[in-house]
């Protein structure tokens, strides 16, 4: 499956998801339609509880929609999951405490049957990428929250998946580290031409990173706006002071505010 530009990788059509709970059912996603092309960097933004995580989990085949259709790489989401089509970075680092950092990154490689040598190779490479080379032998609790989060990103990058699903990966980090990792992520994306779906609460982050910003709104969770970014692929940090940037950020903020008004 050679990635050719503009081929559609993820396609959601009138997706619906209702959680059955003890009391009232929760309508988490309603009529969500969205196409994501090869090489896209799509950010999802919206108030707490609007269904961002739920949508990402649907794509990952971790949640089964109750209506609509969803294809990933032309397969159902579940088939794509079994075909190991994506790497997933959770909202919290979720490292296994009984494994070292290197061991945690090795985990998917072991499961996917990489050779021992290849495993070590890749671990070294991604550790370097997230600047944790000195910490491979440490255990998760010996690292600060930010370092743990970086390790979990490394874990998702260690194997070759064309799709990267990231759920607020930088939520727990301070602004400087966050800026730094944003830059790194952009560089990686440019280099590998991966397709990235990225959930965030931060408007500047969404605008800075994405080719496409999806604004969502709760109760029931739905897409209220999809903003295509005119920003160039090459993005220095100070692009954030440019009028285009501020303009897009403004539009996102307005979209968000509209969603909040509903309450």
């Amino acid at each position, binding site marked *: 499956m050679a990635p050719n530009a503009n081929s559609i990788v993820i396609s959601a059509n009138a997706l619906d998801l209702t959680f059955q709970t003890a009391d009232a059912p929760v309508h988490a996603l309603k009529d969500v339609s969205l196409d994501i092309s090869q090489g896209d960097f799509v950010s999802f933004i919206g108030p707490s509880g609007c269904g961002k995580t739920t949508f990402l989990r649907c794509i990952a085949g971790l949640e089964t929609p109750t209506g609509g259709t969803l294809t990933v790489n032309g397969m159902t989401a579940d088939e794509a999951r079994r*075909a190991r089509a994506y790497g997933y970075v*959770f909202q919290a680092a*979720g490292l*296994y*405490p009984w494994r070292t950092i290197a061991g945690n990154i090795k*985990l998917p490689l072991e499961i996917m049957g990489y050779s021992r040598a290849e495993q070590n190779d890749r671990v070294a490479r991604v550790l370097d990428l997230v600047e944790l080379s000195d910490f491979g032998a440490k255990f998760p*609790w010996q690292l600060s929250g930010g370092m743990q989060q970086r390790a979990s990103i490394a874990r998702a990058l260690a194997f070759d998946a064309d799709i990267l699903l990231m759920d607020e990966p930088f939520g727990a980090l301070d602004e400087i580290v966050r800026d730094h990792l944003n830059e790194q992520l952009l560089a990686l994306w440019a280099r590998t031409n991966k397709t990235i779906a990225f959930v965030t609460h931060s408007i500047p982050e969404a605008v800075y990173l994405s080719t496409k910003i999806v604004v969502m709104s709760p109760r029931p969770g739905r897409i209220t706006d999809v903003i295509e970014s005119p920003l160039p692929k090459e993005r220095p940090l100070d692009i954030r002071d440019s009028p285009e940037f501020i303009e897009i950020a403004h539009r996102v903020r307005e979209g968000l505010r509209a969603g909040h008004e509903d309450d």
Partner: protein
Amino acid sequence: MMLVALALLIWIAMWVLNVRLATGENANTRTIGLLVPAIFGLTILVVWELLVRGLAVPLVILPAPSHVLSTFLSELPTLWLDLQQTFLKGALSGYIIGCGAAFLTAILVDRYDFLKRGLLPVGNFVAALPIVGTAPILVMWFGFDWQSKAAVVVVMVFFPMLVNTVAGLQETTAMQRDLMRTYGAGYWPSLTKLRLPAAMPFIFNGLKISTTLALIGAIVAEFFGSPTMGMGFRISTSVGQLALDMVWAEIVVAALAGSAFYGVVALVEKSVTFWHPSQRK
């Protein structure tokens, strides 16, 4: 009466000393951690000795610790023989078989939800069977030697171990499991790489509980029939012979062996579950 008053005095003095040690500046060091319970134990022994002497308690009711100690030392070969019979043959083999079987059952139970919902309630019920009733039955089935003691131990440790292991295997968080699913990992990889490691603290909880159960089970089972050796045999016959010093010497052996067994398992636990917050400190 003098001795009784002295006992009281020593009790208070030692307690004050312990409070000092426990709240003093080196309270967190290993030495103090061992010293404080040791002093406490020693105090109990001294007070016991003084009370037995002071109140002139008959030997056949309660022997003094010094008396127990001298019996302990002079009867070491017998005690060692009994320990082998009861602990090494009866308790340990039953412990290994029982915990091993429970572990394997737990993995089955964990895999098949139907079994879990069916077996656990029934298991809880069976676990409530008092040993006093099961021991005579098992002695009848498995004979007088250590095999029946091992059987009693198996019955005693099986369910605590099963329940703990099953609980442990379910201890993973939703996110940890989801991570495995994103890798498209099948049953075995997620068992060996996620659920078993995550279950270890619980498994060791079961193993620790089972240590004391195993020893008690083996000893008690000997009350219901045994060859002419074993700790339970010695205890019950010595009571009949009014050799209370021997009874207490065996009890000391039981407490030492039981605590050591517990301690060894706790040590292994420490090295296996070093990552768990309760072990990190």
